[in-house]
Structure formats: structure tokens, C-alpha cells
């Protein structure tokens, strides 16, 4: 098995995450799609670190994880705030600026 198979897996996971963001309406599920995309890039980072024999890729994956954790906190707080005011977690209902 070639190591580049990992990159193929990362590409498939990234595409599925992107499709989730495009297709789903529930804001929380959309957010999980974003998380899946971040994880896919992490897998690519780790694989490239192995290909090039340099741990910098792993360090970058580590930074991505930290930033993702911070992003989840803020994003979920926003979802909760919207849910409190609109009683809905659907991305379609957030249309306050619409006419």
C-alpha cells in the first residue's frame, strides 16, 4: 500500500464534510461537517509529515486542533444564542437581515 492512500482518504472525508455543509440545514450538523473537514486536513498534514520526514506537519495539525477547539466554543455559543432568540437551530431561520 502506498502512503498516498491516506491522502485519498483525507480527500474523500474533506469532500463529504463539504457536502454536509452545503446540504444539511441543522446548524449543529453543518458545524460537524466543518469539524470533519478540519480533521481531514489534519490527516493530510500528518501524512505529509511522514512523507517529508519532518515533524512540522504534525505541529501544524496540533495548531489546527487547538484553533478548532476554540472555534467550536464560539460557534456553539452563537448557535445557542440564536436558538434562544429564534427557537430554532435551522440555518434557514436565521434571516433577520432578509428584507
Amino acid at each position: 500500500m502506498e502512503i498516498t492512500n491516506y491522502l485519498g482518504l483525507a480527500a474523500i472525508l474533506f469532500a463529504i464534510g463539504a457536502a454536509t455543509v452545503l446540504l444539511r440545514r441543522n446548524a449543529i450538523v453543518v458545524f460537524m461537517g466543518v469539524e470533519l473537514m478540519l480533521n481531514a486536513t489534519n490527516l493530510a498534514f500528518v501524512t505529509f509529515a511522514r512523507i517529508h520526514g519532518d515533524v512540522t506537519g504534525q505541529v501544524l495539525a496540533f495548531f489546527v486542533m487547538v484553533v478548532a477547539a476554540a472555534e467550536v466554543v464560539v460557534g456553539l455559543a452563537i448557535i445557542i444564542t440564536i436558538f434562544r432568540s429564534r427557537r430554532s437551530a435551522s440555518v434557514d431561520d436565521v434571516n433577520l437581515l432578509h428584507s
Partner: protein
Amino acid sequence: MTASGAEAALFWVLAPLMVLAALGLLFARKAVHAAVCVMFVMVGLAILYVAQEAPFLGVVQVVVYTGAVMMLFLFVLMLVGVDAADSLTETIKGQRWAGVLLGLGLAVVLLGVVAQATFPPAVGLAEAEELTNPVALARVLLGDYVLAMEVVGVLLVTAALAGLVLTHRRRLSVRPTQRVLAAARVAGIEEGRSLTPLPAPGVYAQNNAMDTPALGPDGQPLPHSVPRVLRIRGQERSATAVLAEEETLVQRDDLRLIGVGPSSGRTAEPAGEGPEGPAGPTGSAGEDEDSDGEVR
């Protein structure tokens, strides 16, 4: 460099399962199912990290993603309401097909790039991780990237503060006192609301769950004794079903007792009293009066 046979086996077992779980995220109707699927993908990724000579990242993946991030997702799902299912009506015409097309296109482009690109022969991390993987990571993280590390610390503090500020609820009205609440209750009588707390759910010989209605003094079930949430979800049981169940149990007990001999007083009693005997509508009224008042 090609991977070892064991690693290849691990990859070919794990990768299809992970792709299936990721598709579960895309297609699962319920958000909780999607969350569990994502958790599976993340644990699978952690295993692949360990297989790819990155044990530290594998552990961090389990701790941070499956341990913290996905738990946070589940907490928010519980907060927002588990039954908040996706609506299937399209608000933008043709959005679904456009989304499917874009997703497939992205997959084709990315896979094409991976397949077309020529990669240098893989070096492996044996040399870079001379001591251990965490030591090698720490050298780079606290050496080359020490400034980024500090900035990330600031980012985490900021995110924690943002979470606090965003979920903070400011009280817009004066906190109602007991006197105000009492006056409102009395005033509500005219609108048909009850002065007393609502009756607690039913307590039967075999069943004291929240979903069974209590029986009133006249023997009729009181539907409003079941919490409102259960009624909206349609998860309420009817009193007749519960009573019928108990009736059959009592009968079965009677039949068995005939074979055994003289019956003990315990099992004979409910049969004599009839099905409505053990139903105590006010059985647990005292315990959860306060919480019930808020829920309904």
C-alpha cells in the same frame, strides 16, 4: 516507501468504515446519530495517526476531539432539543442538486490532484523522531513556533471569554417575588388555569414513570398530569394501556397461585380491589411539585 502489511490491513479495514461513518453524518436524519458517526470517524483518525508514527497527535485527537469537542456538541444538542430534526423542504430551488454536484466535484478534483501529483519518495519519521515523537514535537513547537504557541494561548483565553459572553443571559425584567407570583396565579383562575400545582404523573402498582397519566378522584385519567414535552412528542401512555397491563399481570399471578395453594395476602389484594385500586394520583405529588411548576 510503502507501508507495512499490518498497516495496510489496518488502513483497508478502517478507511471504508470511516467513509461509511462520514456518509452517516451526511445522511443521518437525527443530529445525535450524526454526532455518533463523527465520533467514530475521529476515533478512527486517532488510530491512523498512531499508525502513522504520530502517537502524540493520536492521543490529543482522542482527548480533544472525541473527549471535549464532540461532548460539547452533544451537550448543545441536548440543550437545543434532540428532536430538532432537519426540515426537508427546499428553501432555495435546486440547492440539493447543486450541493450534491459540488460535493462530488470537489471529491473528484481532490482525488485527481492526489492521483496526478508526483510525491517524493517517503522518508519516514524514524530520523526526525530520534528520541520519541513527543520530544521531537516539543523541540519544534517550543523552538520554531514558540510565538505561535503564545498567540494560541491568547486565542484560547479569548474563546473562553467569548463563550461566556455569548451565552450570558441578561435579566430584562425585574425578578418576580413570591407575592407577584401568587397574585398572578390567583389572577389566572379566571382564564381557566389552576391555582394549585399541576397533578403529578400517575403511580400504579407496576408503573410510576413520567409518561403515565394520573387518575382523578372520579377515576378518569388526567392528561395534563403528563409533562408537556412528552405530550408534544406523543410519547405519553394512556391510562387504559397501563391498567390493562396490570390486569393481565394480576390474572397471571392468580392462576399461578391456584396451583401453589393458599394465596398470600399480598397478591390477592390487588385482584380484589380491581384495577383502579393501586392507582394513586397524588402519590408523588409532594416530591416534584417545584420542578413540575416550571416544566409545564
